[in-house]
């Protein structure tokens, strides 16, 4: 199963979104989360992103979802820091954080591959809410 890693500037956002996604997938997939800096400020934590990706990789790849501008850069750095065994297995979605994470988590839980999971996450942009 594809793993999902949630990256936010806020630990609360990451923790809460984890709960929402986990509730929808009932433990079927691995979901990681990194929010806030090591010392508890609003911001991102590259080392933690690396660790969470490792925890969530079970052979089928990991999709990373991010919130604001600099979390993309932090996620990209995390990918560069990962060993060669992860090369090409981890993708960052160009998707809205909450909506993309829920959609991607459900898609991963039905066993879709990483490209499909990423596609579904990115399609969450076009979600019509009203």
């Amino acid at each position: 199963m594809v793993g999902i890693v949630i990256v936010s500037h806020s630990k609360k956002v990451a923790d809460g979104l984890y709960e929402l996604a986990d509730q929808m997938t009932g433990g079927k997939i691995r979901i990681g989360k990194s929010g806030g800096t090591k010392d508890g400020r609003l911001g991102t934590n590259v080392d933690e992103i690396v660790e969470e990706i490792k925890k969530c990789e079970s052979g089928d790849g990991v999709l990373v979802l991010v919130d604001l501008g600099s979390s993309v850069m932090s996620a990209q750095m995390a990918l560069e820091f990962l060993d060669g065994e992860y090369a090409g297995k981890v993708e960052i979605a160009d998707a809205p954080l909450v909506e993309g994470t829920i959609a991607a988590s459900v898609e991963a839980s039905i066993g879709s591959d990483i490209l499909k999971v990423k596609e579904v996450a990115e399609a969450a942009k076009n979600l019509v809410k009203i």
Partner: protein
Amino acid sequence: MMILMLTKSDVTNILDVIIKIIEDNRQYLTDLDAAIGDADHGINLDRGFKAVRDKMTQFLDKDIGTILKNVGMVLVSTVGGASGPLYGTFFMRMGNAVSGKSVLDENDIVAMFEAGLSGIKERGKAQFGDKTMIDAMEPALNELKKALSEGRNLKEAIGAAANAAYNGVLMTKDIAAKKGRASYLGERSIGHQDPGATSAYLMIKTVADYVDKLQQ
């Protein structure tokens, strides 16, 4: 004629001063960020450079390249904002450009600055004029190269680079942000000085002041 070279202890001395300068400007940089961002740039950098200070002993016995790479890694791990991956990449790429060296000549300095700046551009996909740290760095690099090619010495060239960086900072007041958090404000960011350009200037100015005091 003597040629000015930077030794390893020059590099670590400069790092020490940068740590201090960032600490001194923590509030100033944060206030600049409050106007057009999220009021944390000084806090972010101070956190990162304090971590550099704390970890410095672990890599102080290494060559200049390794030291700079480690500085970059520490910044990436601890800063927390956009400036973390950006300055982190800057120092890591500088380190790569002078890997194994224990003294730096003019060419090394140009090469590392060039490598660092292109790292920032790759990482953040910003260009000169987007109201970012690049607006201080790119004119500084261009001025450094120009001055050296005109035969001016390193002191003069780095001094000129610092002036160019300062003008770049001033220019950020007149333009709208296209990258980073300030871009949410669009045209409304005009009139405000970019915090990242300011911190970049402070670092370049630190190098210039340090080099200026060296005996040639």
